[in-house]
């Protein structure tokens, strides 16, 4: 092959940006290049990573899901309230939360597909609905103090250098592996790419377009609920205001990861890199004792840079 295929350019750029950021920070700040920092990158952003995986599938299929932040917030307060206030078993509560998230996603997917409604509006409705439901459950934060949470909090896999990964990043990494296989090695995953590439053609190619689209939103609903549960594991609490506007962070991570917002082009691995860039930028502002607003500005600039780059690649 004489040239790098065009479709790899965004992914390679993302990788290059990450390598640059991480090595520059390592040279500048003592102690940055350590496994502690690596473990932190994953731990702090595990729930964002989980929801970004679902968002990648949604965006690959040519859609968008604005409801994920609200669903995460709803799940976190529901789980906390049921465990703390109603003394229910965590495993049972999680099952309820996952089922609700899944059904919620499926319903939005069905609306989008059956009535041919724009995903933006349907999920915007979902955003308000789920956030409202979160505050309906309980308008303030609830602590979780349960032996199961204590035991899960003790889980720590050493990754060398004395650093350890907790339960939240482990869930994320396992999901990441599964998503890689689903996206690249299943008919479902390939159909997602096809629909995002050209939905009308996908219909004429006799692909199961409706089923696949509904499935994508269903999976994203499930993953949002799972991210919400992961959040309660990480914070030992639930709060109806949790993850407000997190859907926008998730979209940013996906786009920085090289996935086209128009659908059909992108990689799960890219989303991992996007998440690492996102996390590294916040980590750098922490090391440099900068205000976190600097990180937000940097992500904004990076995002704009990436969409301009994508436009240039796909114009000719």
């Amino acid at each position: 092959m004489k040239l790098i295929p065009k479709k790899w350019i965004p992914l390679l750029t993302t990788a290059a940006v990450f390598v640059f950021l991480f090595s520059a920070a390592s040279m500048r700040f003592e102690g940055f290049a350590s496994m502690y920092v690596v473990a932190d990158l994953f731990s702090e952003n595990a729930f964002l990573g989980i929801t970004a995986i679902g968002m990648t599938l949604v965006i690959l299929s040519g859609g968008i899901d604005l409801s994920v932040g609200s669903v995460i917030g709803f799940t976190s307060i529901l789980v906390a309230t049921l465990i703390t206030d109603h003394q229910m078993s965590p495993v049972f509560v999680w099952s309820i939360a996952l089922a609700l998230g899944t059904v919620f996603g499926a319903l939005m997917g069905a609306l989008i597909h059956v009535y041919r409604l724009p995903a933006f509006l349907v999920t915007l409705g979902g955003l308000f609905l789920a956030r409202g439901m979160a505050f309906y459950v309980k308008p303030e934060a609830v602590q979780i103090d349960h032996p199961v949470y204590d035991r899960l909090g003790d889980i720590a896999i050493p990754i060398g250098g004395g650093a350890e990964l907790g339960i939240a990043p482990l869930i994320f990494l396992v999901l990441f592996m599964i998503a890689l296989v689903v996206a690249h090695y299943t008919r479902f995953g390939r159909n997602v790419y096809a629909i995002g590439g050209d939905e009308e053609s996908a219909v004429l190619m006799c692909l199961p377009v409706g089923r696949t689209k509904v499935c994508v939103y269903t999976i994203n609903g499930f993953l949002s609920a799972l991210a919400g549960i992961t959040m309660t594991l990480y914070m030992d609490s639930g709060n109806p205001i949790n993850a407000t506007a997190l859907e926008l962070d998730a979209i940013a991570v996906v786009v920085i990861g090289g996935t086209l917002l128009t659908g059909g082009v992108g990689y799960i691995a890219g989303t991992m890199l996007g998440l690492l860039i996102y996390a590294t930028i916040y980590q750098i502002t922490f090391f440099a004792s900068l205000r976190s607003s600097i990180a937000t500005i940097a992500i904004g600039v990076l995002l704009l840079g990436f969409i301009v780059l994508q436009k240039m690649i796909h114009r000719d």
Partner: protein
Amino acid sequence: MAESELLEIRDLRKGFPGVQALAGADFRVRRGEVHALMGENGAGKSTLIKVLTGVHERDGGEVRLDGKSIHPRAPVQAEALGISTVFQEVNLIPNLTVAENIALGRQPRRFGLVDWRAVRRSARTAIERLGLSLDVNRELCSYSVATQQMIAIARAIDLDAKLLILDEPTSSLDEKEVEELFAVMDRLRNQGLGIVFVSHFLDQVYQICDRITVLRGGQHVGEYVTSELPRIELIAKMLGKEASDVESMEAATAAAHHQDAAAISNESDEQPVLQTKQYTRRGAIQPFDLTVRKGEVVGLAGLLGSGRTEIARLLFGLDSPTDGTLTVDGVERSGWTPRRAIDSGIAFCPEDRKVNGVIAELSVRENIVLAMQASRSLLRTLPMKKQLALARHYIDALQIKTPSTETAVGTLSGGNQQKVLLARWLVMNPKLIILDEPTRGIDVGAKAEIESLVASLRRDGMSVVFVSSELDEVVRACQLVVVLRDQKVVGEVSGDDLQEHRIMEMIASSHD
């Protein structure tokens, strides 16, 4: 040769609300032949294909594939039976690889996961079957439209297809690419596939097809061996005319035609209302010169896809030209848009009035005053009294049959809808009105009324560009007819020369 018959359709019927799209169509395709399905607008070609591929369900009749009666209810089922379709637009996914495009939805799997090695291997086999060689790992969009079309064919026949339907496959291909496509079709024919070829390019039909079936008005006109059916007869059959006396006139009229055309252009020194010089839009219509004078009805005649509508759209500024000049009242105009056309007194009644014309939910009155209202500012609403007066005037003048001025247009018959559309533009008192297929899909009585309306507009000094696939109509309504074939103006007829058979000859004459 009954045993080589692959597809047999008998007495196929399919109706839609208000239209009987298929009223007893027969169609037979043999193994190892390319069979052209020909017919004009509304002949039922696309309905037949849609019934065959399971998009529509038939009302009656029989479809047999390999001697077995079939009843596909969805394209997936048709595909499983061995009927595959490739459309004019390449319906593949541009950003996936060639291999994946061929395999999508039926990828070979190992342990439930897509076996990419097998995907690439079978894609290579499918491509080789067409006698092509290309890199199946490259993205589809890195290949030309022609190659993408071949890949679409490769996908279509990959699944043990017996019958391949090619719906206008050559429309976006250049000559060399058409040759390549024909080579592939030839190869598949030799492999025993039955191929249905739908195209409005007569030259191509004569080049590649073994047989031709003609449909008209949803009915079977006949099945012919291509080599035994002269072009002129084919056209006559498609248009529903008698061609028996046509050929003898051929030589005699050629000379007269030229003289006549010259006479007309010299005779009037009045400034033309609209004139084009070498006006063209690449891919839609080759450069053409057109002159429309005051009080003249100019017809655009030709088969479906010959470029009639393309000219109409260019004249109204709906599409922008790639070259050439357009002059209105002696002033050369550039950046021609519908807004400017309307300001210059040009009106346009589009071909598909449901899509581009009347607004079905609005009342007759609202539809009629729409254009006039739009030309005023938003705040200066036309007084209701004036609106009613205008609506009543045109309902009378055009004899629009409607219960009241407030009836929703959607509930009127096609002919009356057409008249409402016309009224909307007549309110504006245009200098030139472009009518694209004004009589399509309306009954005979309404057709006659539209024709006499055109005549009276002309007497009032209005100019008309009249597009129609009904030759008799064009001949009656027009003073000058511009004849088109394959996106090219092939001549003009006027005066004594203006006769149906003369137009048919011009459409039939081949490139070489």
